């Protein structure tokens, strides 16, 4: 049998380790990545001519970032690497791509999707103003551009990125106006025993918080964002604190996010089955214990399958590649399989504890004011969705899209569907699972009509 044609989409921690494993076993995969250089968002490389060291940019994770970059660079000449290339759909055994305005068409026998994650957001009044960015975006500005999103940035949300990015900003000399943590101190203390499964990650998290406090950064726990202060530019953020009082914090930019959610559009377009995960309150693509999706020949790895972080992504990337190799007739390596299983088991306990410690504020999302612009692409307020439920009997996200245009815009619901589902479920009195998930539509991201053919 001739070697299978394998395509790996994404060159972050999962994609890189998957590719490395395939090459080690004699395959020459095609690697397609949107970024100009491998590393993914977490280990994103800075442009040529920038001089900061890996330690400056990645802190404790500098070693991991450097090893991942080196592992990928060592594969040059052994793979067909296509950076700056966007996959806009999966059609049967082909993927259709776009690079610099030119279209491409690639056949595969096996496909590994390592498409990563994006911030999970909760919309609040004013979140579309210039100066409001995701936590991940605020981190990209610093890591990739040496810039802060403002001179006095307010960090608001939850999850491990909240304190990490605030710490990275402060360390880089950027102004941090305040860190507002949606989770209260008591709830975090209760979560500590379970979080102990990830000792070093937990220690780093506690270090960031302690460092920020020691450097005089204002930390407010158990408060949620209500509205941006300022008409054309950010002047501050109005909060509701844990006792229900209104508090305004001054600042000129806002970084927000409540954890991450997987980027699953390509898995959806490929026809993979999804299941509702009650713990994450999200629809996730189904995988078996080794990253096989419900579609033969399509494998899922990293945060694009389920949020578990960069360490786990390296392992699930290798694991998906090993499953693929086994499916195409290569002998298994039981000892290595056992190592991966053991490491992943430990990380998965920490993942579950993190999800428990930093829950998405679903009650606050469900209760957002009618005036909050829920869908930023189409400028649809939460009140319009509630009206569609009351007046039109809308009880499903795809019907909500037809009735209100929520989720119909260019981001395809990436930044509104999570909160919209909570509003819809609460208003219609249905379970979150029952309101469904937005059906994926090709193109996964906008494609200019002028795109010409190019193999």
């Amino acid at each position, binding site marked *: 049998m001739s070697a299978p044609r394998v395509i790996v989409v994404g060159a972050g921690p999962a994609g890189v380790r998957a590719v490395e494993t395939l090459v080690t076993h004699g395959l020459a995969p095609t690697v397609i990545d949107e970024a100009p250089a491998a590393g993914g968002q977490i280990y994103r490389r800075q442009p040529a001519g920038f001089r900061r060291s890996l330690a400056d940019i990645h802190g404790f994770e500098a070693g991991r970032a450097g090893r991942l970059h080196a592992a990928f660079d060592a594969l040059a000449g052994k793979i067909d690497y296509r950076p700056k290339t966007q996959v806009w759909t999966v059609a049967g055994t082909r993927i259709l791509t776009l690079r610099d305005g030119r279209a491409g068409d690639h056949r595969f026998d096996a496909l590994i999707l390592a498409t990563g994650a994006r911030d999970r957001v909760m919309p609040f009044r004013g979140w579309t103003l*210039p100066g409001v960015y995701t936590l991940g975006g605020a981190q990209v500005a610093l890591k990739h551009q*040496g810039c802060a999103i403002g001179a006095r940035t307010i960090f608001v949300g939850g999850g491990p990125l909240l304190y990490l990015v605030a710490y990275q900003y402060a360390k880089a000399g950027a102004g941090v106006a305040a860190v507002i943590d949606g989770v209260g101190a008591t709830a975090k203390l209760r979560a500590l025993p379970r979080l102990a499964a990830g000792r070093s990650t937990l220690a780093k998290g506690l270090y960031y918080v302690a460092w920020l406090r020691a450097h005089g950064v204002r930390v407010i726990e158990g408060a949620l964002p209500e509205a941006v202060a300022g008409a054309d530019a950010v002047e501050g953020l109005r909060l509701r604190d844990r006792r229900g009082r209104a508090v305004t914090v001054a600042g000129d930019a806002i970084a927000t996010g409540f954890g991450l959610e997987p980027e699953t559009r390509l898995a959806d377009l490929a026809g993979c089955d999804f299941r509702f995960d009650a713990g994450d309150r999200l629809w996730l693509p189904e995988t078996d214990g080794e990253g096989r999706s419900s579609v033969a020949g399509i494998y899922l790895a990293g945060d694009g399958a389920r949020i578990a972080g960069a360490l786990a992504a390296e392992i699930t990337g290798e694991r998906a590649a090993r499953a693929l190799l086994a499916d195409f007739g290569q002998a298994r390596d039981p000892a290595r399989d056992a190592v991966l299983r053991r490491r992943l088991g430990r990380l998965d306990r920490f993942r579950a504890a993190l999800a428990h410690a930093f829950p998405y504020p679903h009650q606050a999302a469900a209760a957002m004011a009618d005036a909050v612009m829920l869908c930023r692409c189409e400028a649809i307020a939460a009140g319009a969705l509630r009206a569609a439920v009351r007046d039109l009997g809308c009880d499903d996200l795809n019907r909500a899209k037809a009735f209100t245009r929520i989720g119909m815009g260019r981001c395809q619901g*990436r*930044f509104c569907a999570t909160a919209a589902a909570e509003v819809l479920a609460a208003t219609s009195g249905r379970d979150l699972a029952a309101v469904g998930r937005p059906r994926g539509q090709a193109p996964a991201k906008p494609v200019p009509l002028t795109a010409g053919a190019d193999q």
Partner: protein
Amino acid sequence: MTHPRYGSFDRVAETDRRALRMTVDGEAVAALVGDTVLTALRLAGLAPRVSEFGDGARAGFCLMGACQDCWLAVDGRRMRACATYVRDGMVIVTGWGETG
């Protein structure tokens, strides 16, 4: 016409790079090699686009190519500001949402 300003990025590192110039809606804007168009615009206090629905300026949100809220015209082609690097003499037109 002078643009309204919408707050600004703050450059905290990597300041020792070659400077270049481009125009944004006819105004000269300075940038450094390696800046994205979005970075250059935000450092100048500008926003790449205006919402089609009358709710004001937009300046991107995710900075990683997911939100699609920073499209503008670069040398006559529609591009995402966050995923496009500046070049000397680049001609940028903002407000794509307004003009279709």
